[in-house]
């Protein structure tokens, strides 16, 4: 695309390709225009009117996020009048917002807070406007995120995300006027709705209305790959104190470009599941049992381990790695060749699959290796 449209923004000459918006032109020139309902990658709806700018020779103010550039346009993004209009718009948004900022998990990354800092508000007028804060029930039905309509600013980003990025169309605006509300079909709880819990809307909500459950900010992020399906989405795992507290999409990954599905975004939780095995286990057989069974079928095998054993047959006993490996090594020696077989894993890494087949072929002397997923 060639930059064939010239315009001036606050006196700066800017060249952009045809079809760009004033906002994009301003961003390319490094001029900040405050926005709220704009979200890169989604169509602009012009819902919030925070991004209004002046265009010379045109009446009214125009939303920068959805006004295409024209050759020779002269744009002003900041002056007293614009400031005043933005301030009033912001005050209206704030007037029914439940701003309990200190206790809001979004605090610090909230776009509304940032706007208040940038634009400011008139306290007296604001107090007059301030109605009783809404007291709608919070939808906590989804296991991974909550929806607090009292914090919603009706920017519509979540709705557009679900429609344009996810293609599920689970939510829309419902009711009118003061009752306007983001709602699932039939105002069902999220869990009962068409929502597939991908969390893309939660990721993009500019305020604390759609918010992940148990938010903890990671102290460190590690770039890696999702372990669920063959798409292989890139993700960042957020780590805090030795546990994983968050996953987010990797925008530099050519496969998912920052997007994730529910498994990628929330599925990491199995890592810290209390059901994880934490020690090698060996089945202990009663050494007095006359019929040798299982591991005891191999002569002498099991002896080193049967010392501190439970007398009950068939119970697992925890052993150390050293014991487990030594025991296994001494047992496997008796099973070399085609009486041995192995199943490798489509969940393990390439390196591990390589090493395992090498072990089976070189040490065990057989080609009996396969894995469970043939597609």
């Amino acid at each position: 695309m060639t930059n064939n449209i010239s315009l001036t923004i606050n006196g700066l000459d800017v060249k952009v390709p045809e079809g760009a918006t004033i906002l994009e032109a301003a961003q390319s020139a490094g001029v900040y225009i405050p926005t709220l309902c704009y979200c890169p990658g989604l169509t602009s709806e012009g819902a919030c009117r925070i991004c209004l700018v002046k265009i010379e020779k045109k009446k009214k103010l125009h939303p920068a996020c959805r006004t295409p550039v024209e050759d020779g346009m002269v744009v002003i993004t900041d002056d007293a009048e614009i400031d005043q209009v933005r301030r009033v718009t912001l005050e209206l948004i704030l007037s029914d917002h439940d701003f309990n900022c200190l206790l809001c998990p979004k605090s610090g990354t909230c776009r509304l807070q940032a706007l208040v800092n940038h634009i400011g508000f008139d306290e007296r007028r604001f107090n007059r406007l301030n109605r009783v804060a809404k007291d709608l029930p919070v939808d906590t039905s989804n296991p991974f995120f909550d929806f607090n309509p009292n914090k919603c600013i009706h920017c519509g980003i979540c709705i557009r995300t679900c429609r344009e990025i996810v293609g599920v169309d689970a939510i829309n605006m419902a009711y009118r006027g003061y009752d306007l509300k983001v709602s699932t079909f039939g105002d069902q709880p999220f869990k009962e709705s068409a929502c597939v819990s991908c969390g893309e809307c939660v990721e993009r909500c500019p305020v604390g209305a759609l918010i992940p459950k148990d938010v903890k900010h990671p102290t460190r992020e590690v770039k890696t790959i999702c372990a669920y399906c063959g798409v292989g989405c890139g993700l960042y795992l957020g780590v805090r104190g030795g546990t994983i507290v968050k996953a987010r999409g990797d925008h530099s990954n050519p496969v998912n470009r920052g997007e994730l599905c529910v498994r990628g975004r929330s599925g990491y939780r199995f890592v810290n599941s209390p059901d994880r095995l934490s020690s090698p286990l060996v089945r202990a057989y009663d050494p007095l049992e006359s019929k040798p069974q299982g591991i005891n079928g191999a002569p002498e095998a099991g002896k080193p381990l049967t010392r501190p054993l439970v007398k009950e047959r068939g119970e697992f006993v925890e052993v150390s790695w050293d014991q487990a490996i030594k025991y296994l090594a001494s047992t496997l020696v008796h099973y070399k060749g085609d009486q041995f077989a192995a199943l490798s894993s489509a969940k393990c890494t390439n390196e591990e699959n390589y090493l395992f087949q090498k072990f089976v072929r070189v040490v065990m002397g057989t080609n009996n290796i396969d894995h469970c997923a043939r597609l």
Partner: protein
Amino acid sequence: MAGLAAALGSGAMTNAVSEIGEAACIFVIGSNTSAAHPIIGRQIARAVKQGAKLIAADPRRTVLRRMADVWIRHEPGTDVALLNAMARVIIKKKLFDTSFVEERCEGFEAFEAAVKDGDLAEAEQITSVPAQKIVEAARMYATFSPATILYAMGITQHSHGTDNVRAVANLALLTGNLGKPSSGVNPLRGQNNVQGACDMGALPNVLPGYQKVEDQNIRKKFEKAWNCQLNPSPGLVLTELFESVHAGNVKALYIMGENPMVSEANTSFVQEAISHLELLVVQDLFLTETAQMADVVLPAASFAEKDGTFTNTERRVQRVRKAIEPVGNSLPDWVIIRDLAKNMGAKGFDFNSPEEIMEEIRGLTPSYGGITYGRISKVGLQWPCPDLDHPGTPYLFAEKFSTPSGRGQFAPLSYTPPAEVVSHEYPFILTTRRSYFHFHSTLSRKVDGMNVLRGEERVEINPVDAAPLEIEDGDAVKVTSKRGTVQAKAKITQTTPPGVISMTFHYPETRTNLLTHGALDPVAKIPEFKVCAVKVEREIDFGTQYLGWGTGKIG
């Protein structure tokens, strides 16, 4: 996979995922993409919005149906009949790419002869798809170029899955939709690293890089590198393996990170086989159903606790990084194998890091020749990537195919009915499906939230079938095949066509695979998960049994 390798010379996805967006026509068959591969499902949806044509063929009513230009709901197991009929239309209407067929393919005459006899009326009868729709789909696929085909388990998990895959490849060869961007034949891999496990030679007949065990020169190369003597005869494939275990020929089994007790067809047979083993070693994250039967259980570390690489469905080798220390007293799989091998006195296992292993892989696997940790630290590379200067290969076969002759191979095919057909006693076809929330059996079940979302098995039944059986939504039902019985709650839905019921296999407490059978595809040896005959009954004396537990022989 075997089918695609025979036709084109490689069993992998021919094109990159990101190319889907630029395709003029997308043909999805046997894949509920939106649920199994959501991120690819979204790309399809966006491509359609931008004007791409979508043909969706699936016995089930998938999400893609809503945006499809042509939606085909064929009878389960009749894919070859459908695809052959499409090929016939394309040939008859002269919509095929003559120069591509002449210059780059082989076996066209035999293929043409095979599809010529038979007519649309017959295809309509077999598949239950109106002839008009078959023509429309064929026309669309042949005229909007580039066209890409995506498929998944719905195509491969049949007793004749290899035929299905070849039938898909035939269509792509016929229309010249190979060797260029946004075209191709694209199997969507199920688990995250199936592609990598295959690439690395976790297969009984090939060494890393699909180098044949039977080839003496190949063996020599590896014997030299590994300083050993290799067994020249290919090993047992998974399903033969359990037969062999059952017969007592295989006495010791070592399973790393798989749960065949839940994931394999005909579970009761697998369980019986396992009980014949002298030694079962299971290395896993959890005490799975399979691990519970083991003699030795070794706790392994998860993907977040180790370094390494995964190779995704589009052949992209990507870096996995350690985020946290191994949980509990677990160890990464590679450490366990290394220590075991060293303890058994083996040489050549002195690796200190996965990167060192990759260096060895690189030297022995031509398609991975140029892949180093340094090069893939930011963005992964797509194999073949033979040397350090090679940029990777987004789409395959630009110049020639990887078959011995370098040409694409047509396959003359005829339709064979599924191995098990419905009978008076077992009047329904059971097909297995996947849900959004779970993947295979183990991992996602350990995430509490996922169980809240879809906590138990639901048997999907069409209202037309449910009414005469007096089954209502949420009723407990008993599903029986020749092999076993399971119980679950019914879900009355239009999603599943009349005559077909569908279940997932994510829930160990409802072991769907007790029902499925082990009829194997003769080449790829994939069991027929997708089609099996069952009967459905309303569970009357249900109060005595705990809901959701199988009543097969197990437990």
